[in-house]
């Protein structure tokens, strides 16, 4: 298991006993509720997939019935923690040597399953059929290897952001993760197992084997074993990574002498693989021969892949199979070869979960009646091992573990997620502003920042459940798990795709959920919403007393001041903890004076003054309490008064003190009771409340609730307002939209402020109009 003990879990290096005892809560999680199984048994690794329901706690808010009660001293709404059942996909990868142990373990822990069959694929499915049937009492139902592989490939391409990466040599970041293209077809899948299969995939159900080659992983292994007397595939790769192929291969410069440059040929090109070993008298080193063999095979595969890509007019080639499976040397040589033969026109792409494709596909085959493809799925960072480092020499421990148990968990999301229709170019949209995989300085800062905040988060989590006897213990487990994730990410920033502030935040949320802290800020939010509501009317009155131009500025200042109330920012949470009186006015006084760090307020004002009212504004809200109630709502009210419809989008699930959709419903209802503008807008459906589909403090505009997208289209939305550091700075700062947009936030982190050339509490006010 990759995750446990990013450090300090010494010993056991490569010597795991076959009779290992499996800790049930860490491997094969939720097995007791497993509904369906699939297994993919390859030459050396087994991948087990199962689908289970997960019972976990969710915080629910429910409005009190206030009729005839004293509203003054009651909390605004009731918070209850309820059990919810959701679906999760588990994938576990382990060496074939553990298969019996694992089957026994599964048998012992399988309680509630009703299934009678297990879908099986992979070359080993035949070999282990009897064993599986005997041990599990399930009927083995075999599925075609390639069909499973492609189904699995389509699934990860569609559901896992940053699934795809290009390998880059001589770079700080070995992997260059790709944005998920909205249209994944057509592509070429080159599977390099013992041989090579080249498959053209055109649609979900349409694919064609267009060619192959017998020179593949088996050739490397078989021929390599003969040449070097080295038996193991991994050891052969190790040898290859140390060898000099030029001692064995005949290069162009060996044929041309020193004069090759006259031909425009590079002298280092291989003229003839093994062309120097045409003698019985000379000894060649194992390393050199292994390296030469690796180049020969990688080049050959790359060349054929390019020839097929050219014939079929394709420019994306995904590589998979055991020859690739995360091995840096083979990724490097294949990438080199593809670049060489295609002259850069074709890209060699690899998949983070390549090893799971067959198992995922087999599972999907068996689960067709559950329509898994109708849902969106999300990688659960808490339950997934992540990509191992490709440098075996640097982290031998991690590699050893990764070979033992590696896991992927995916949560079924309540609703399908789609692109925001207003994205200018969905295929190039990158939510995140800073790529921490690339930017080592930023990475160090943020990892440290999250480490330093961890104790506080754990403490708050425990405190949020004062009645629970094991809250302390769970909080400690959470702390440990997230700490380990952070350590893993220090060494392998690419483990879950591009490392970003968003992924760090999301991982923390996943870990909190994992240990049943569904909403540590629920009480804080409840209290703050209550306090802010009481001030709503006076804020409105004072705004209404202002002249038009003054009011516009006050509204924007209110939005910004509201945004100071962010428990996710340490500078703020420290203030809020120590100064309970800190309020709206105090926040306003903290704000930077104009001109702001990013300041297009004048253009915005001019737009309001001179342009027609917007048809419909989509507003992504940030924090609970003062932010939504005293900042966002007055702004919404002004837009409504101008004749602009408003779609107010809040998170589906909790994250920090961000306002959730269900909280926003109650808050809006309360405001409507006080304010006729809001009241009539709600009644006339000019103000619409929707959920984003997300539970992240950041915002990925390419994965939004389908209902929201539909509404945006229907109402012809022509203004998008994105508020808050998470949504407008860490993400979407550079997002290009096809309509007008406002991105505003207060920078509540001095390091970030410094980076952007400002100070803490600097203001970002970015009004953008798409160029025509």
């Amino acid at each position: 298991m990759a995750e446990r003990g990013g450090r300090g879990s010494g010993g056991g290096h490569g010597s795991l006993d076959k009779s290992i005892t499996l800790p049930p809560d860490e491997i094969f999680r939720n097995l007791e509720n497993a509904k369906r199984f699939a297994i993919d048994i390859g030459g050396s690794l087994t991948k087990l997939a199962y689908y289970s329901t997960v019972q976990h706690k969710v915080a629910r808010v429910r409005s009190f019935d206030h009729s005839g009660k004293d509203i003054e001293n009651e909390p605004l709404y009731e918070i209850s923690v309820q059990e919810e059942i959701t679906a999760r996909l588990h994938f576990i990868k382990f060496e074939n040597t553990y298969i019996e142990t694992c089957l026994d373990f599964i048998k012992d822990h399988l309680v509630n399953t009703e299934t009678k069959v297990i879908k099986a694929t992979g070359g080993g499915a035949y070999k282990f059929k009897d064993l599986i049937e005997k041990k599990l009492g399930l009927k083995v139902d075999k599925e075609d290897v390639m069909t499973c592989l492609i189904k699995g490939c389509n699934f990860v391409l569609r559901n896992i952001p940053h699934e795809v990466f290009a390998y880059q040599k001589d770079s700080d970041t070995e992997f260059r993760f790709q944005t998920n293209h909205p249209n994944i077809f057509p592509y070429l899948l080159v599977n390099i197992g013992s041989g090579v299969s080249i498959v053209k995939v055109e649609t979900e159900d349409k694919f064609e084997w267009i060619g192959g080659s017998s020179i593949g992983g088996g050739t490397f292994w078989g021929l390599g074993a003969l040449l070097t007397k080295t038996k193991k595939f991994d050891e052969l790769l190790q040898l290859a990574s140390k060898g000099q192929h030029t001692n064995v291969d005949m290069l162009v410069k060996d044929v041309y002498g020193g004069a090759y440059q006259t031909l425009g040929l590079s002298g280092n090109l291989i003229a003839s693989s093994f062309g120097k070993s045409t003698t019985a008298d000379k000894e060649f080193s194992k390393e050199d021969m292994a390296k030469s063999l690796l180049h020969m095979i990688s080049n050959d595969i790359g060349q054929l892949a390019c020839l097929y890509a050219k014939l079929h007019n394709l420019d994306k080639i995904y590589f998979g199979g055991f020859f690739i499976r995360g091995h840096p040397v083979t990724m490097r040589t294949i990438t080199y070869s593809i670049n060489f033969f295609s002259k850069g026109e074709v890209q060699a792409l690899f998949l983070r979960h390549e090893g799971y494709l067959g198992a995922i596909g087999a599972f999907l085959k068996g689960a067709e009646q559950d329509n898994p493809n109708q849902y969106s799925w999300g990688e659960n960072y808490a339950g997934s091992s992540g990509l191992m480092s490709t440098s075996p020499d640097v982290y031998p421990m991690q590699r050893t573990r990764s070979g033992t148990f590696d896991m992927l968990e995916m949560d079924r999301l309540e609703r399908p997620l789609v692109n925001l229709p207003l994205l200018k170019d969905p295929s190039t949209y990158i939510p995140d502003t800073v790529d921490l995989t690339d930017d080592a300085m930023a990475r160090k800062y943020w990892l440290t920042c999250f480490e330093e905040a961890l104790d506080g988060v754990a403490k708050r989590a425990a405190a949020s459940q004062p009645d629970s006897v094991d809250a302390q213990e769970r909080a400690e487990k959470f702390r440990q798990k997230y700490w380990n994730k952070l350590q893993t990410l220090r060494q392998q920033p690419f483990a879950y795709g591009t490392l970003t502030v968003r992924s760090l935040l999301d991982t923390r949320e996943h870990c909190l959920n994992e240990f049943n802290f569904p909403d540590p800020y629920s009480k804080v939010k409840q209290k703050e919403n209550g306090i802010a509501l009481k001030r709503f009317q006076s804020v409105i009155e004072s705004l209404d007393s202002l002249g038009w131009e003054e009011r516009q500025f006050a509204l924007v200042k209110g939005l910004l001041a509201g945004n100071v109330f962010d428990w996710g920012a340490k500078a703020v949470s420290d203030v809020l903890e120590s100064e309970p009186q800190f309020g709206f006015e105090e926040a306003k006084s903290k704000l930077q004076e104009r001109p702001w760090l990013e300041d297009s307020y004048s253009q915005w004002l001019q737009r309001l003054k001179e342009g027609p009212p917007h048809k419909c504004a989509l507003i992504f809200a940030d924090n609970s309490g003062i932010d939504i109630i005293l900042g966002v709502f007055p702004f919404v009210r002004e837009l409504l008064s101008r004749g602009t419809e408003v779609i107010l989008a809040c998170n589906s699930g909790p994250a920090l003190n961000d306002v959730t959709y269900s909280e926003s419903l109650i808050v809006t209802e309360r405001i409507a009771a006080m304010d006729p503008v809001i009241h009539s807008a709600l009644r006339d459906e000019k103000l619409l409340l929707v959920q984003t589909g997300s539970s992240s403090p950041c915002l990925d505009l390419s994965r939004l609730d389908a209902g929201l997208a539909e509404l945006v289209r229907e109402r012809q939305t022509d203004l998008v307002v994105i508020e808050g550091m998470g949504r407008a700075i860490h993400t979407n700062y550079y997002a290009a939209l096809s309509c007008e947009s406002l991105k505003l936030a207060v920078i509540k982190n001095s390091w970030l402020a410094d980076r952007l050339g400002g100070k803490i509490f600097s203001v970002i006010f970015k009004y953008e109009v798409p160029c025509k």
Partner: protein
Amino acid sequence: MEPPRSCGDGAEEEKKPRRRGGGADAGPPQLRRRSSGGADGAAGPQPRERGGSVSRQRRDSVRKNRPLFPWFGLDIGGTLVKLVYFEPKDITAEEEEEEVENLKSIRKYLTSNVAYGSTGIRDVHLELRDLTLCGRKGNLHFIRFPTHDMPAFIQMGSEKHFSSLHTTLCATGGGAYKFEQDFRTMGDLELCKLDELDCLIKGVLYIDSVGFNGHSECYYFENPTDAERCQKLPFNLENPYPLLLVNIGSGVSILAVYSKENYKRVTGTSLGGGTFFGLCCLLTGCSTFEEALEMASQGDSTKVDKLVRDIYGGDYERFGLPGWAVASSFGNMMSKEKRESVSKEDLARATLITITNNIGSIARMCALNENINRVVFVGNFLRINTISMRLLAYALDYWSKGQLKALFLEHEGYFGAVGALLELLDSA
């Protein structure tokens, strides 16, 4: 020749259409001797205009519009040197009289022997008789020796005072560059270096046009998919274009030829004859190409390779793959037991099959991409190698469902050398 390692971006030259007589790298040779005082070794491009700056000395000596004897064409490859020698048979008594001693001795030496030193061989069966070249009648001899004996060859030229003959030695292949300096210092000879692809195509077209002593130079295998009925038959290559020319030497070059003047290098692969021989040496301890082929002819590759039927128990119908197809070359060698049970002959055979199938596969893809359906295989890998030729014929026919035809030429590896000789004559 293909890719490699650690070189930045080596092969811009690929796929650039190359027109003979056109670009700087494709023109006919400039003929120069050291004494002419040309800018030898200068890095800049040499003037390449046909009939361009020919030295005075040379012009004086081509009164009869043909170069001085002896007429050689040399192709110095990575493994083998190919030498063609034109032996004039119409020497008049007067000429005989005039013939300098050195020249006579070279002629006698070459034509009265079939082996030279311990490694030089004259392929007597390939000799072209009664050929007319530049108005002279004679026989064309085909001689080969390993490239590592090149220094001895130059030494011999020096001892026979080759340089005193004031002839030009036209050479192609990488060795023309590699050994240029040795020719200069050891042999006092200035090589006329020629583009190897130009020479190759020129040689192929010429030899095919003159035929093989009354027989067809080009042939194919009829019924290649049927071992019983398969037979070698002549093929008329009268109208050769377009054709894909696959030259299998140590490495492989693939050219698409659209006309005499218009061709391009499509691609190449480093898995060629050198790979077969090199791997055989490592795997079996053999020391000659002939030995490797002999072993291969006695082995069984299915013990070494994993076939489709080894994995699927029969055909893999989902993809229309026959059970006999190789799924993984050397795939059975992943198993220790099987490694211990195979013979050297089996390994040699598997190596041969692997390399041959791969060349067939790449050639087939190139033919499809270039929309050409005739593929001519040449190069010394095919010498005495019927197994590979029949396998290429079979593979092309089977996988293209009969759309592609594999053709072969009797003079396999000598076309570059022939092309070099022709350049010598053309230059006059």
